[in-house]
């Protein structure tokens, strides 16, 4: 805000032409309300573009690979994985943490940015929420199989039965069961509640009776009633308010799986915030990768503008710095604690410096990959050209996701393959089933995701309309009411 303007005479009215206070509208100025409907709902009505098929067919094939690997794994046993003493947690848990982390950006965008009134989220939140749901589904596959006998997984739930066997609620692994299931449920509910008005939009545009019936069924008979909107807006705020601590708790609980153990490299109090930040970082990167693809395939340049992408890159830059801080702090604490095992782990396993006996980890390159991708690559977003260049963003976000996978690999495998006694040291090599399952979950994720963008409104239509210039009455703040607060979200939006 300019100093030239006397602050107290500035109207605090949302409807003030925002150029006057040095802001620009998020959406193109000539965007009309019906254009939003046509643009977003139209995708579900036209045949899929060729780019969609080019992605969809390999995705389905990879998903098939996942099911083949699952079938083989369940019939042959978890021995087909490369896990072996002492590395009992390997790619499976790495993939679990990676996928769960990817989901976190969705909740961050839909809930935390909502609470902070970041209106630019409306162009990416639906997308990211869908990603959350699918990523959590992919994540859940791994611990379910890692139990070894997945058909006995119902032991994880406190089911009253004649066996009278109960879970041990003091175990962080049990906390995980509750955290991940709650997270999946709430993410699905949040996503669905947001979809209701948009499904009604598609229903009302349908000319085909079958489409009208199917979309109409899931739209629950939504008729845009303001008596409904009033409750709906508050419910949405409540979902945002509970999802925010939920998303922070889920990855914290995941990090407890490690932090409550005694393994050097795992037994660290910094883990909960470190994991949450990393999760948001990697999730943002994947949202952006997919966003760039979908934006090009479906021509959504007017909904997801360079302004949005620019804001997302800044977000990634910020989270990258936080992650970098956590990496540095781990080393500092390893030195400051005076714990020789912790010290050995960080200086000889992670950096890979040979110790006095010439010992070091053969996996030290994984740590270098992690740091260069997660801390090095995002630094390019300090430069404006990088925040405006689609190819730079695309490559950078892919590298970030590679780096974040390595982060989990470094934490999990590197820590347990070199613990206290050199006689207990081992090495981990992934098998073809490990690789097939990992690639397969990517295909499964992409399949679900492509079906979503094809058949459901990929942007929050109603919310986008609410941030168009002039979407709200010009005399809005004549009567200020305290209970308008939740509705305040959807006013014409200054960009930041």
């Amino acid at each position, binding site marked *: 805000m300019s100093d030239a303007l006397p602050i107290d005479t500035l109207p605090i009215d949302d409807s003030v032409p925002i150029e*006057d206070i040095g802001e620009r509208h998020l959406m193109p100025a000539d965007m009309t309300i019906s254009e939003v409907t046509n643009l977003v709902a139209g995708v579900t009505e036209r045949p899929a573009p060729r780019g969609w098929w080019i992605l969809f067919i390999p995705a389905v094939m990879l998903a098939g690979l996942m099911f083949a690997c699952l079938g083989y794994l369940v019939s042959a046993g978890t021995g087909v994985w490369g896990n072996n003493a002492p590395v009992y947690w390997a790619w499976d848990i790495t993939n679990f943490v990676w996928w769960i982390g990817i989901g976190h950006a969705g909740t961050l965008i839909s809930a935390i940015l909502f609470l902070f009134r970041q209106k630019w989220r409306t162009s990416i939140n639906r997308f990211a929420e869908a990603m959350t749901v699918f990523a959590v589904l992919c994540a859940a596959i791994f611990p379910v199989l890692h139990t070894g006998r997945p058909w006995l997984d119902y032991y994880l739930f*406190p089911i009253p039965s004649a066996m009278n066997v109960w879970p041990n609620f003091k175990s962080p692994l049990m906390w995980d069961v509750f955290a991940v299931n*709650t997270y999946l449920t709430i993410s699905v509910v949040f996503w669905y509640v947001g979809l209701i008005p948009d499904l009604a939009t598609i229903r009302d545009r349908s000319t085909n009776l079958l489409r009208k019936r199917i979309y109409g069924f899931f739209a629950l*008979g939504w008729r*845009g009633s303001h008596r409904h*909107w009033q409750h709906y807006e508050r419910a949405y705020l409540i979902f945002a308010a509970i999802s925010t601590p939920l998303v922070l*708790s889920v990855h914290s609980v995941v990090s407890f799986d490690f932090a409550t153990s005694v393994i050097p490299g795992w037994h660290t109090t910094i883990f909960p915030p470190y994991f949450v930040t990393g999760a948001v970082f990697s999730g943002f990167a994947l949202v952006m990768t997919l966003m760039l693809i979908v934006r090009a395939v479906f021509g959504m340049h007017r909904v997801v503008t360079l302004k949005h992408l620019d804001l997302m890159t800044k977000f990634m830059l910020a989270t990258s710095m936080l992650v970098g801080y956590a990496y540095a702090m781990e080393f500092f604490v390893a030195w400051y604690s005076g714990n020789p095992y912790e010290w050995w782990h960080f200086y000889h396993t992670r950096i890979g410096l040979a110790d006095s006996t010439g010992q070091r980890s053969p996996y030290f390159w994984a740590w270098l990959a992690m740091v260069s991708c997660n801390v090095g690559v995002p630094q390019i977003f300090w430069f404006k050209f990088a925040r405006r260049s689609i190819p730079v963003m695309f490559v950078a976000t892919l590298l970030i996701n590679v780096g974040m996978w390595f982060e989990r690999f470094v934490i999990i495998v590197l820590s347990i393959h070199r613990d206290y006694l050199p006689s207990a040291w081992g090495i981990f090599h992934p098998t073809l089933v490990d690789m097939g399952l990992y690639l397969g979950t990517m295909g499964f994720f992409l399949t679900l995701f492509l079906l979503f963008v094809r058949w459901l409104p990929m942007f929050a239509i109603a919310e986008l309309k609410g941030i168009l*210039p002039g979407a*709200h009455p010009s*005399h809005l703040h004549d009567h200020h009411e305290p209970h308008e607060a939740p509705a305040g979200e959807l006013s014409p939006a200054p960009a930041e």
Partner: protein
Amino acid sequence: MSEDDDKKLDDDSSSSEKGASEPFRKKTIVGMAPVGQTPKETKGTLMGMPAIDDAQVEADKQEKLAAAEEKPAAEEKPAAEEKPAAEKPAAAARPALYLAEFETPDAIVHAAKRVRDAGYTKWDCHTPYALHGLDDAMGLTPTKIGIISFIFGLTGVLAAFLLMYATNATDTSVMGFAGYRAIIGGKPPGAFPSMVPILFELGILLCGLSTLFGLCGLVKLPRHNHPVFSSERFARATDDRYFISIEAADDRFDLEDTRALLESTDPSFLELVEEDAA
């Protein structure tokens, strides 16, 4: 803020950002003739005004008004005659609601205030997105959904505590199921700190689910049939138009007075929707 300010802001926005307010400016309807000019074609008695420009809208409206005043009964008749064999011919043509269409947020808010002040209770606004200022313009009281979420959130926390206590902290049998006083990691049975994550998660879970079902209960959805859907124009309520509906079930509802009220708010379209002949 005064009316003058409003006007000034409007002017500012149109001059400083060309076309910024265009989507919401009142426009003429092109290629959108009122569906079913005659009552026979739809269930409703329509009083559509194919507007070409504002002057014509005005002229049309006067004409329609005059026509309606002359023979209000004549318009009702054909609809009733369509179902002579029906058991309850009166029910077949019973008016369900008036539906008025507006093109701008300002227009619907002004109209909503008029309807509110006229004392109607069973009426509603239909908008493509949550429109600010309508809570006040409709005279709605704040929603109570937060209370539901809060109560069920606490219930979830309590349920989680009882669950963990019964299974891990006591061997007293509850309904035939006994737990174990398990000492794990040197922590006593029922140690509170290790309960916190699950207390939290189950609290959130119940809070979220109760918010969903509480929302469905408060707004009485799913409800897939509603008289407003009989209007073919109403499809635009989820696209780019703003509607006010006044239900016939309202005590103050009157075919003449209610229509006069809605017409005085200058809607771009007004129709009487009748109930489906079930």
